[in-house]
């Protein structure tokens, strides 16, 4: 089907749909086509290659993640998808359109939650939504209806006349998400949505994002928190130094690249750790000494722990846990995510 290429005529469903603030306008005939498709996507800043030949497909209705450490190229990739950073190489299609040509038309149908809040501090909570809706050319009556609904969604309805500055970090982030939904976007892009939030604010935000996911909104998230990626993403890519190093669902990635369990050993002093490492040979599929502990990748943590004492090894602490995406990243790159 032909997509509207008019930046100033956003798709406005007339009926209010409180359960689906976004994405509800999906056309059945579009379902098979990926919302985002990148082939060899590259971004150079002069000599520096920030994104180095990335291939990605994001399907309608899924929550897709870019996981990787700071500087991996996640934000730059996201900015190219958001049509606020020109592609310097490869192909990118967003909502079936070409960002090089159709930037305004694509942006009209996106919701963007940037890493740093850029709420309008000269305006109230309500006016932030109002102005943002106006930027999309929406009539005030439509914005008013949606804004009321979105403030309830963001649990900010009692703060509508408050200025932005006194809001907590979590409230600001929720307001930014509400603002990003004002145009009922087909695609919501969230760059590091919970960075800098306290655990409670983080969980509330996750819960709100779950709700969007349940309502069928397509979400694309960048994060350097593996727990965030595991909790939210149906599918993700792991990025490192501008490239994709692995792709799949969290479960698939762990099954494919890691063992079922991990035994973490901590020693009282580094010398003990150094002495113990050579004696761990054969205890697991892989032994990874990191800064303050040794990780043994194994299919049975209990067997490995038993084998430890048979060899006369008694670390200060022993922890058996399931493999996580953090382990996948470590095994693939030899570094941990927060390095």
């Amino acid at each position, binding site marked *: 089907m032909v997509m509207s290429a008019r930046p100033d005529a956003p798709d406005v469903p007339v009926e209010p749909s409180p359960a689906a603030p976004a994405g509800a306008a999906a056309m059945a005939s579009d379902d098979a086509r990926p919302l985002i498709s990148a082939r060899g996507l590259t971004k150079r800043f002069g000599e520096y290659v920030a994104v180095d030949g990335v291939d990605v497909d994001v399907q309608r209705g899924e929550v897709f993640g870019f996981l990787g450490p700071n500087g991996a190229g996640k934000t730059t990739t996201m900015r190219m998808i958001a049509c606020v950073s020109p592609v310097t190489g490869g192909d990118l299609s967003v909502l079936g359109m070409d960002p090089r040509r159709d930037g*305004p038309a694509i942006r009209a149908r996106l919701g963007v939650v940037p890493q740093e809040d850029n709420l309008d501090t*000269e305006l109230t909570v309500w006016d932030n939504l109002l102005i943002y809706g*106006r*930027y999309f050319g929406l009539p005030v009556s439509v914005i008013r209806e949606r804004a009321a609904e979105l403030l309830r969604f963001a649990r900010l309805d009692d703060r509508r006349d408050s200025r932005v500055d006194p809001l907590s970090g979590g409230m600001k982030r929720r307001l930014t998400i509400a603002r990003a939904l004002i145009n009922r976007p087909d695609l919501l892009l969230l760059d590091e949505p919970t960075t800098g939030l306290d655990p409670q604010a983080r969980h509330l935000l996750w819960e709100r994002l779950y709700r969007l996911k349940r309502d069928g909104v397509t979400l694309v998230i960048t994060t350097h928190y593996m727990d965030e990626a595991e909790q939210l993403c149906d599918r993700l890519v792991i990025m490192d130094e501008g490239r994709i190093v692995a792709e799949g669902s969290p479960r698939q990635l762990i099954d494919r690249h890691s063992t079922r369990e991990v035994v973490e050993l901590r020693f009282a002093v580094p010398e003990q750790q150094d002495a113990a490492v050579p004696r761990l040979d054969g205890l697991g599929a892989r032994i990874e000494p990191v800064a303050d502990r040794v990780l043994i990748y194994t299919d049975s943590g209990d067997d490995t722990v038993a084998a430890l004492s048979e060899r006369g090894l008694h670390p200060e602490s022993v922890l058996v846990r399931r493999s996580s995406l953090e382990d996948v990243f470590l095994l693939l790159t030899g570094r941990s995510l927060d390095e």
Partner: protein
Amino acid sequence: MSEAAVAVTPEAVGAGARALPSGLVRAVPMLLVAEREARVWGHLWKTSLLTGVLMPVLFLGAMGVGLGGLVDENQGTVAGVEYLAFVTPGILAATALQAAAGESLWPVMAGIKWVKTFHAAAATSLSPGQVFGGYATWVTVRMLINAGLFVAVAALIGGVTSPWGVLAIPAAALGGLAFAAPLTAYSAGRDSDQSFSIIMRVAVVPMFLFSGTFFPVDQLPDWLEPLARVTPLWHAVELCRGATTGSLSLAGAVGHSAFLLAVVAAGCWWGVATFRAKLAP
């Protein structure tokens, strides 16, 4: 008293009334950026008008009427007119320049770097160029409002001696924009506001005082006179003065307008390029 008091929320009254017509914004989307600025201004218009109009009116009283009386007693006329009539267009153009500077330094840095409101706008269907254009449009509108009110007051005092004086309103705004456009471009490209107060001291204040505002530029030392004549403000003052005194020749009008429009065009080109580089790198 009626119990059925009218329950109209302030937002219900204000919000709809202040939105631009949809046909207009569809044709010129950048006006939505101006609408945002207007909405913010709507909360502080009283103080804004107070500084924007009261200050020049006070200047007019002190310089035009007070000092002017003294000048006229001793000198007769300045450049062929009473001092009040001479200084009115000078103050008009100079305060437009000052307002332009105020809007083009720190608020621009806030939009690009501190608060990032321009980034937020550029993530919507608006483009970086439209964000620049919308902002410049708003600055122009504000200068038109201030200039309009000032000219009205000046006319009452007797500072405007020709009906052509009404054209001094767009002339002052054009002069202000010739300063605001390149300055906005400059500010958008800076990494810090370090240079801004220097610009105020070494560019804005000297221009304000010496571009033919309070006395003709031929009173300046010979070496300084050509410098004054290439400032946007001198051209704006000449345009405004020609309008309020009714003495402007067609050639003068075209020449000064062309100079200012050229500076505006260059400033807009620079501004669009800088906004693009900053908002969509």
